[in-house]
């Protein structure tokens, strides 16, 4: 049977379009860029014997052409103390970087990954704890279902202070009102259960400190969703922070950050991170977002993902000055083809041109955070990654930071 021109044209178009499907976002990490050095940071400058300290290993990765980035590799390195009687590391993988101080002394703490080695000199003092306190939180009244992180601070005989949150024994006087996490990590986290009053106690030997917690009988009446950017439109390939604000039966309101369940009506348009409330624009169009706590659900919040493409980037501040050992957060703002601007700090790739002077973090929640390493100047570049642009090359911009 003779095939008609029309039928074959339709077949041709179907075959062509079948070969023109989209591709998914990449999932492989940049794991081939070599680890150049390991930097060790410590929770405390020194600790007293008998207490614990948390160390963090930051991997500095770098290729040629000045491409460098940092990554938290605490759980991937091997931790060693030069004298385990002074400081010994936990072998529990869930407690990577946690070390217990034994007797007074100075040790070399080492973190090793393959052939790369980082070191830090650390001192354990023989100071004795003289007092224990729980710094008062901004508010000791919680609504049921909410959480509050308490901290325990010890003062020692040598005049020093030390965060002992992970070193004390936590207890709640009434777990039906409020509970407190006793295990590390996460020790000292109070969770409000039901209306009433409870005392949360931190104890270390013969010393203790108490914080009274009130769980309000007020109930959550409603929740509303807003955007931190003040706009409900984001460009495809970018993210936006959504905020859940609860209004209670006493007309008070409070931003809620835990115990929430987010839902997006169309995951082909946007997806959302349950723990942070950060929404990602995936495909052009509109979708609705709701958030729920308990049996209270918010009204639908409409989010629009635009097809605007990135035209240029700007970093602020443009002339940051950072002290050695200190950090400063930079923000990146994109200007898009529809003349809108949007903060894209989380969405760009951050690069330091001189990691011996300053590093810039790419870790989740810390993107754009610059740390001063040594005196000098360094170029910090923000480059478009998955943000669509009509320009042939990735959009980027740089600023110079001064470390003093």
């Amino acid at each position: 049977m003779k095939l008609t021109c029309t039928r074959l044209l339709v077949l041709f178009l179907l075959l062509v379009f079948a070969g023109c499907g989209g591709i998914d976002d990449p999932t492989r990490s940049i794991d081939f860029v070599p680890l150049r050095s390991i930097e060790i940071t410590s929770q405390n400058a020194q600790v007293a014997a008998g207490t614990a300290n948390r160390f963090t290993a930051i991997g500095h990765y770098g290729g040629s052409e000045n491409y460098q980035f940092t990554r938290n590799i605490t759980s991937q390195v091997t931790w060693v103390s030069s004298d385990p009687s002074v400081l010994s590391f936990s072998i529990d993988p869930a407690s990577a970087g946690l070390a217990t101080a034994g007797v007074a002394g100075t040790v070399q703490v080492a973190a090793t990954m393959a052939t790369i080695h980082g070191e830090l000199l650390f001192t354990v003092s023989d100071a004795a704890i003289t007092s224990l306190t729980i710094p008062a939180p901004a508010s000791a009244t919680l609504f049921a279902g909410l959480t509050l992180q308490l901290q325990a601070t010890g003062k020692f005989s040598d005049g020093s202070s030390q965060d002992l949150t992970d070193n004390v024994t936590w207890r709640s006087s009434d777990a039906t009102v409020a509970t407190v996490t006793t295990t590390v990590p996460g020790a000292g986290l109070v969770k409000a259960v039901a209306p009433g009053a409870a005392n949360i106690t931190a104890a270390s030997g013969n010393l203790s400190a108490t914080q009274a917690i009130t769980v309000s009988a007020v109930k959550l009446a409603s929740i509303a969703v807003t955007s931190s950017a003040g706009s409900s439109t984001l460009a495809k390939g970018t993210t936006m922070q959504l905020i859940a604000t609860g209004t209670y039966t006493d007309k008070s309101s409070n931003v809620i950050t835990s115990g929430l369940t987010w839902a997006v009506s169309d995951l082909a348009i946007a997806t959302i991170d349950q723990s942070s409330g950060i929404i990602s624009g995936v495909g052009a169009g509109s979708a609705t977002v709701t958030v729920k706590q308990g049996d209270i659900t918010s009204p639908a919040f409409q989010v629009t993902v635009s097809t605007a493409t990135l035209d240029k980037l700007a970093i602020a501040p443009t002339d940051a000055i950072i002290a050695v050992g200190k950090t400063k957060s930079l923000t990146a703002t994109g200007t898009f083809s529809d003349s809108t601007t949007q903060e894209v700090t989380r969405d760009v790739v951050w690069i330091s041109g001189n990691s011996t002077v300053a590093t810039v973090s790419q870790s989740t929640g810390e993107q754009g955070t610059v740390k001063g390493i040594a005196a000098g100047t360094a170029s910090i570049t923000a480059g478009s990654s998955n943000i669509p642009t009509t320009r042939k090359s990735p959009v980027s911009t740089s600023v110079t930071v001064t470390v003093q």
Partner: protein
Amino acid sequence: MLSRLLSLLVLLGMILSTSAARATTPGPYLELAGSGTWLADSENQSDTGHFNATYVGGLGGGVALGYDFVDLHPAIGKGRVELEFASRRGSVDTLDFAEGRLPASGDIKITSVMFNTIADYHDNSRLVPYVSFGFGYAEVAIDQISPMGVPFVAASKDGVFACQVGAGLGVELGNHLAVDLGYRYFGSERPKFKLVDGSSFEGQVGSHNVLLGLRYKF
């Protein structure tokens, strides 16, 4: 200059408008063609997740030996079959990872031998639209790719099954000669390549090709 251009246009018009006989007898032909190639973005699957690649277009070319059946088999229609040897090139522009996009470079060369079937739509005009379908074998070769100067993909090659679909327009210049202007989409099964660490990944091949050829029928 303008008068020469006008003269050429008039001459071309005279050739195309003449009522000289079109090719109506079956017979073999030889076609030489050059092409522009645009590689489609690819999703490349490795052991530890997938990374994507974008490309910059390049040039290609090919030669085909075929047979034009014309009206020999009216029950099937008017068409041709041919064996095509072609090569097409492109180069990597960027590689996308979970953390973001990195500039990269490295050439890709696709060499193929394809068996094509072409359906021509003759009327009394010298313009002959066609659609085509082909299948065959392709060897895909890639250079070492080093995003930001760091070696990642090793130079490697793989042979795969390939197919292509196309459409175009033939312009008959007489009994023997025709100009071919066409589009082809070329795809293949996933070729396997090596990374510099010794592990392998599956690539993805798809290309849009615009070709300009000259066909001589014996």
